[in-house]
């Protein structure tokens, strides 16, 4: 009996289900899937809604948004609008929840699917830095926050959590994989080796006094001094380089109470833990779908399972015109890759061939497909996956199109079926998990300790009312005025919040006054 079972009195598997689990596990291993030990829990729909609301962690810290999530899931289920089939947690051992009321076919399918996810969690590079003991960690987080709530009041702690959640996406998605800077000791935020800089001087070449004004011309000397001064000024910038991990910056530099620092670091840790799942949604679901369909159609299915399986599968893979189904896109791309590498339809020779028929019937019998998709699942994330493997043919075959919002009609309309545009749109939506990219630029703005953020504008404006609310929440953390530089209606503007009111400054003066 697992820890969770005893903790929450979930039911354990029936002997029949244990049997199925063993079969599915064997099939998965026989294909070379490599996963952590996986523990299945059987829950009813109410429990599943609750666990799903907590993002899979029943021991998570208390917060109203989980309650909201739960009400929606539970309501959606009871109205028959939606049903969660499966829930897997990236942890070692992996935990997966099964809906007790599901039929036996569904259990088979879900288990096969879960093994796909577990393999992905364990082997995909982007998950390599996630905490594999997250169940324990989350319980720990929950206890700490509950403790703070007991000591400082629910309202107080919750308000602060709300403020932190507002910026939980302002993290550096690549930080776990790159060394951005030298590690400092955790609680030593002041630079101890701060040097006093003298006024800079220009390099002076040795020269006889009568030659001096020629060898060391004043103009050049001044220019050099200025240059050096600039360098120095830059060093005095705070932060020295714009910083992507806004949360980390605030953790280290905002004037927070110790419990607030801890709460914020908890939220940041969880944001980093969940980030890879958002980064690999298409790949992860595609991979799991690929394996459940492979295992089910080749081994797992009895004749009596067929209708149920097909029904379930078609439901999961249904496309929609307003939403690209990640299960569908993912699994089709893997199959496309497998097919191309089996045929050898890649590389310079293939790319340069411009005979349509030759390309269509291309077959070098390389048989590298399976090997290739295993490699893909190891190294890519959604962004690079789409960038690398979404081809013109694929786009046509699956009738992909891009759509956008038309201000005049108030509708989302089909924009284009051109490959380039479709791909670009998709890549844009995947960049930084679809969120704007924001840096801390200056934390001593106007030399008054105000926080200046910069939105790296890439053609799409921020939604102003949300941005203003976010600034207000940032103010609660930084406690000094907050500014963000962005673009609105093609001009550079700064949105500010000074604790009292919002203002907008910038090149829109002809409009403002």
């Amino acid at each position, binding site marked *: 009996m697992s820890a969770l079972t005893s903790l929450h009195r979930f039911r354990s598997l029936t002997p029949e289900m244990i049997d199925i689990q063993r079969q599915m596990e064997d099939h998965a291993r026989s294909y070379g899937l490599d996963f952590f030990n996986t523990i299945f829990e059987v829950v009813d729909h109410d429990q599943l809604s609750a666990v799903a609301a907590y993002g899979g962690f029943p021991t998570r810290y208390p917060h109203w948004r989980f309650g909201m999530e739960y009400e929606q899931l539970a309501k959606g289920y009871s109205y028959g609008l939606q049903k969660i089939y499966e829930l897997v947690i990236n942890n070692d051992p992996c935990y997966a929840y099964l809906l007790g009321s599901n039929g036996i076919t569904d259990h088979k399918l879900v288990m096969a699917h879960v093994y796909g996810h577990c393999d992905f969690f364990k082997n995909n590079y982007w998950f390599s830095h996630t905490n594999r003991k997250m169940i324990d960690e989350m319980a720990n987080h929950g206890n700490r926050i509950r403790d703070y709530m007991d000591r400082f009041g629910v309202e107080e702690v919750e308000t602060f959590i709300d403020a932190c959640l507002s910026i939980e996406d302002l993290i550096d998605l690549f930080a776990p994989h790159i060394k951005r800077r030298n590690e400092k000791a955790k609680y030593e935020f002041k630079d101890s080796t701060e040097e006093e800089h003298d006024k800079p001087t220009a390099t002076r070449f040795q020269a006889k006094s009568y030659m001096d004004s020629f060898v060391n011309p004043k103009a050049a000397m001044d220019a050099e001094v200025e240059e050096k001064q600039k360098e120095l000024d830059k060093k005095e910038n705070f932060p020295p380089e714009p910083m992507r991990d806004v949360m980390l910056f605030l953790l280290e530099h905002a004037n927070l109470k110790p419990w607030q620092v801890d709460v914020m670091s908890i939220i940041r840790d969880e944001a980093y833990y969940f980030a890879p799942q958002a980064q690999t949604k298409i790949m992860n679901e595609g991979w799991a779908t690929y394996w459940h369909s492979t295992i089910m159609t080749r081994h797992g299915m009895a004749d009596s399972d067929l209708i149920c399986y097909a029904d379930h599968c078609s439901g999961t893979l249904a496309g929609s015109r307003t*939403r690209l189904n990640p299960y569908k896109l993912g699994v089709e791309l893997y199959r496309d890759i497998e097919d191309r590498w089996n045929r050898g339809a890649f590389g310079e020779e293939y790319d340069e061939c411009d005979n349509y028929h030759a390309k269509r019937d291309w077959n070098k019998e390389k048989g590298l497909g399976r090997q290739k998709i295993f490699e893909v699942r190891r190294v890519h994330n959604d962004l690079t996956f789409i960038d690398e493997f979404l081809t013109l043919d694929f786009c046509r075959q699956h009738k992909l199109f891009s759509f956008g919002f038309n201000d005049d009609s108030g509708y989302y309309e089909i924009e284009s079926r051109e490959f380039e545009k479709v791909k670009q749109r998709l890549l844009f*939506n995947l960049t930084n998990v679809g969120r704007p990219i924001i840096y801390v630029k200056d934390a001593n703005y106007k030399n008054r300790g105000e926080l200046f953020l910069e939105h790296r504008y890439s053609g799409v404006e921020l939604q102003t009312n949300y941005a203003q609310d976010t600034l207000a929440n940032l103010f609660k953390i930084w406690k000094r005025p907050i500014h963000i530089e962005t673009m609105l209606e093609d001009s550079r503007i700064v949105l500010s919040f000074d604790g009292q009111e919002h203002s907008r400054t910038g090149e829109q003066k002809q409009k403002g006054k």
Partner: protein
Amino acid sequence: MVMKIDRDASRFRQIVRGKIRENLRKYVTHGEMIGRKGNDLVSIPLPQLDVPHFRYGQNGRGGVGQGDGEIGQPIAAGDPDGEGGEGQAGSDSAPHVLEVDITLDELAAILGDELQLPRIEPKGKANIQQDKVRYTSVRRIGPESLRHKRRTYVEALKRQITEGSYRHAEPRVVPIKDDRRYRSWEHVPEPVANAVIIYMMDVSGSMTDEQKEIVRTESFWIDTWLRSQYQGLERRYIIHDASAKEVDENTFYHTRESGGTRISSAYKVCHDLVSNKFDPAEWNIYCFQFSDGDNWGEDNRSALGMLKETLLPKCNLFCYGQVESPYGSGEFYRVLEEAFGSEHESLVLSEIENKEGIYESIKKFLGKGK
């Protein structure tokens, strides 16, 4: 099983209530958003109960879809508030409007807190109680008409099993006299329904649909509040133009008649109703009259007379709400004001300019706590 989620869910509901409180004025004036549903639950749409983030505006939304369709073909409606779908690959694009269910009683409590309505003190007649029969227990003797078949059967089964006369192969259960069980009752004292609301509406030609909507919304809220104060609230509806009649709820809200206006006719019907069915000694009587104030001149005198002599002494509260009308002269309000002054003990006058005025009007009507 008690999960922690219950705590979060109730915390969420608490916040929602606060949110409703903040926006109550909006809900009051947009009465159509609140439709009465089964089980006395109402759904209230709550946009934006999410944590704000920096995110892209609607002009940047969009995504990639799959399927047939010409370029330029609309595929989904955007939200006019600029809250459109996420449109990201992999995330749901359905507009996110949260609906919460709360009970009418809860809503009434919120309304009371927010409008600062005093709890209405019963007239002292709430003590009048009436015995009511409730079937709560089972006994061994009783009339055959009250025989409890299931319990009788269970007794018989139990007896047969203990006797050993029950056989699985042939499960025949025959009750004998000792097995028989009968439902039995007790007398439960219950307070009698003791409040009646009488709505009167002018449906003469000058009342437009918009004005009826205002009346409808206001009545809904008044109803909600009074229902939370009295159990078993009676409601009666009277419509009038030149003549008046008592109608049912549906007719009250949906009738459109035309013709002149004789307010006294409504008072007469109202008075008949009160004297025939609702003895003021036992009933709390609330009258709400809505009109555009355009009465036939010669009728004012008799209407005033009736109000003063017969209705006001019997009512806890008589509220006159005058809806502003493009056609009506709005004279009746002034007539009443002159006759009774604006500080009358049981008569409340209120002018409702438009939907925004409903909130203040309710406050004025019910603020007295009669």
